[in-house]
């Protein structure tokens, strides 16, 4: 059970949060310009890394804010947490 440092609320138990999949996948600005393959790439393809992964998390039972997390999936070490729209900190 992680202890997650919400950028808006501080340290809270993992129970209050919802994981939201891979981070930094921007919704295409002009979907109609994309081929089926390009759209499918955005829609379906997600990484599942053993190691350092960029993830979206939501403080669902708290402030309801989304934020980003860098997590090592091999040992669940949370390496960094930063707000939506911010660049990932250099590790």
């Amino acid at each position, binding site marked *: 059970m992680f*202890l997650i440092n919400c950028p808006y609320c501080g340290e809270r138990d993992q129970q209050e949060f919802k994981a939201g999949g891979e981070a930094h996948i921007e*919704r295409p600005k002009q979907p109609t310009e994309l081929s089926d393959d390009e759209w499918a790439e955005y829609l379906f393809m997600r990484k599942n890394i053993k190691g350092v992964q960029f993830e979206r998390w939501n403080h669902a039972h708290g402030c309801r804010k989304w934020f980003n997390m860098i997590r090592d999936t091999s040992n669940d070490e949370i390496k960094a947490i930063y707000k939506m*729209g911010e660049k990932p900190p250099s590790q």
Partner: protein
Amino acid sequence: MTKNLRVKSSEYIDETNRISFKFNGKTYHGFKGDTLASALLANDVHLVGRSFKYHRPRGIMTSGSEEPNAIVQINPGTNRTEPNVRATEVEIYEGLEASSQNCWPSVEFDIGGINNFLSPFFPAGFYYKTFMWPASFWEKYEFFIRHSAGLGKSPTSSDPDIYDHRNIHCDVLVVGAGISGILAAKNAAKNNFRTLLVDEKNELGGSTIFENNEFNKIDNKTPSEWLKKEIEKLKNIKNLEIKTRTSVAAYHQYNYLLARENLTDHLEAKDKTNKIRQRLLKIRAKKVILATGALERPLIFNNNDRPGIMLSSAIKKYSEFYGVACGSKNVFFTNNDSAYESAISLYNKGINVEAIIDIREQSESKIVKKVKEAGIKIYWSHSIVDTTGYKRLNSISIMKLSNDGTSVTGSKISISCDCLGVAGGWTPAVHLYTQSGSKLKFDEEKKVFLPNQNTSEQISVGSCGGDFKIDEIIKNLNQKIKDTLNINETDLDGIKVEIDQENSKRNIWLLPSDKPIGKTKPFVDYQNDATAKDIKLALREGFRSIEHVKRYTTTGMGTDQGKLGNMHALGIIADTAGVKMGELGTTTFRPPYTPLTFGTIVGRNVGKFFDIFRRTPMNDWHVENKAEFENVGQWKRAWYYPINGETMHQAVQRESKAARESAGILDASTLGKIDIQGSDASEFLNRVYTNAWSKLAIGKCRYGLMLNEDGMVYDDGVTTRLGENHYIMTTTTGGAANVLGKLEDYLQTEWPELDVYLTSVTDHYATASLCGPNSKKILKKIIPDLDLSDENFPHMSFKESKIGNVQCRIMRISFTGEHSYEINVQASYGKDLWEKCIEAGKEFNITPYGTETMHLLRAEKGFIIVGQDTDGTMTPIDLQMDWIVSKKKYDFIGKRSLYRSDTMREDRKQLVGLLTDDPNIVLEEGAQIVSKLNQSPVEMLGHVTSSYFSPNLKKSIALAVVRGGKDMMGKKLFVPMENKNINVTVANPIFYDEKNERLNA
């Protein structure tokens, strides 16, 4: 026949408090302070159970939670009964009953004992190899397994006890209150760290509290005397909370630990009532200090499992702590000095010690000399090659060990004895450590796995960290505490420790016998009956990974997770395969460390608290009017209102007719409501719904369909424009929270530039939906001064008004196809609103209807229910709702996916109406649809999604999804059922009032 083996009074046993208890139906006596195990041993009862596979008689081996054999059923046949409890952990109380498990008909005569004599036919992997085939024999196998191999019985009536959960946040958690844990906790608390010290036992002090070796001294006192003084001092320390009878079950990441605090298991039945039995502590600690100690290892030799064969340390504890002699003719078998301490402990109490068998060549320590002086015979370089005694050990045979330790030589000596203490060294209890994700390293010299790489702020102190001697323990503990707590001094500075030095060690994982291994039974896992022979067989059959050998032989897979024998299993594998133990790795220890009850896990979340539920403000009225309820998400919704003993079908038929013929009223409060404000609110709706919203006038309502990005229908509902920058959106009852979550996600992460604010107001409003040709007249009676004319208040529009002094929002919208109004008031006025409607509607025979009638009425109109007629694979095109998908909008969620080659296929499943040729047959929802009969295999075209008997049309109607159904209008299809084939015809899904004339009726 019963002997009293209580040897000398112990300060931990209250001999003035005599307790009677029953074991296997027979009454025994013990004293307050006894465990079930110590009390049985005091009565000379060793045989307590039968082993799992061979049903061999088994006795008490240990004095703690690592016990593999003495597993009993507590209070059998009562609602408090509990299986698989370790007798070594049960504190006795007046009236306690316990019985043996895994024996039938009794522990003394167990029919499964025949397995022992058949054991050559029960090799490793026996179950895998045998019960594979033939499949038809499974019933016979099951009968055999269930009757002869049960591991206890679960209670059959509900649990009378209360369980609880508590969250604890502390600076320092110390696990284990032996000497290391006590000193660590004391120093942490003294330095102002909020400290919690827990121990699974009911007394503090661990094994040091009965450590009376006269050659070990702390500040010139014996370790036990010294530690008792330290425990005294704990009482006055602030910041320190101590919990005994508290066992840490799990150590998760980020220093999150679960512990079970046992509050009433040691009390008599009359003192248990209305008290919390067990409490699950959810502990989040900044730092964790593991002081979990070490478990003594047995030795692996032929027939090492007989009742009367115990760990040497357990014999010492029973003698020193409980004042119980485990036997009258004791022998020890050892590879280190600790058995000598146990022997002296017995000797000092006048208990007979026959001999010590030592696999070492010699040892020169003071305690060994003392044993020699006491005249106890020591057999150096000897090993036990066999034991005898079926239900109780009665003799051992020993032989001289060869120099390399792989064989035995010379003549066999037989020694008669009734108790054998085995001492194979110590295994640090690193179970919790590894659960935390931290990594171990094998120490080749000490032959132990030790903590190596920590994943959180934690240290392992004392013997679980690899320090076994008191001088090492105190010296290393002192440094570790200073480093971890970042302090300069502790009260351990300057403590003087003298110890008796042990100077020789010898480790042999599997001791040789004069017989070939195939003819011996050297048990490695006592609970699961896995022998060294099985492990060797597994290796011969090609298993290499330690995890595979474990599963194949079942070594370490019992409720004790092989706490005693796992190291030997690893050692035997390493020796046999010729690899180093460090390279082999170890098996994974999983939570819980000791088993937890289900009660502890669920805590208070039982009965009506199992899952929370939500009630509408009108709920009391529904209850008073005998509604039946259905669960929709967490909501309790009125399902139908039977009167005069109506069946559900009868009630729904009546309600449906009334709603169309005169007036009906539905509690629609559970619909999700999201308040949307901001200067970009219209643009936001454009992006999340498939249809266009910019041109919706203030005061108008519009139905919207929301897709997922994959183009599939996600939710639907009516949204009303309340003002220039203000909308109220309704969602499905079940989808409300997810829709809000999804909208927030897009707003925060994809379109942060939009000025839009979302607020859930579902619980703020109560909603009564008034429908039917007389709904207008009823509303007129409630709000006389509101102009209800079609010109002023047309279909799909909104008015703000007042009922008396109560503000209300009225939408003229319809989910039934009838002229209807949804009236919203502040939730606290909901019941009042409802009753006003009922009162005003009396003269029109207003009929309350529930969700079932609502479903029927909307099905007559062909309106979909998301989640019933859709399943996450339906696009709006599949639903034949092309009209709601804007062609003009550049983008909306899911738009691009509607143009994928897969979503544009013509042969997708599409929503159609189905009419049965026989109008009285109602199809089953979920029934499959085919176009051909008598063909196998037959192509499944689709299935029925909604089906009812329509009282208004006087025939059966159904909605279905059918492959290519759009182009099948009028086509004959079949719904094959178990006993008949039903003929159906594809129809327009709008069965009733296709032209929507009734909306303005």
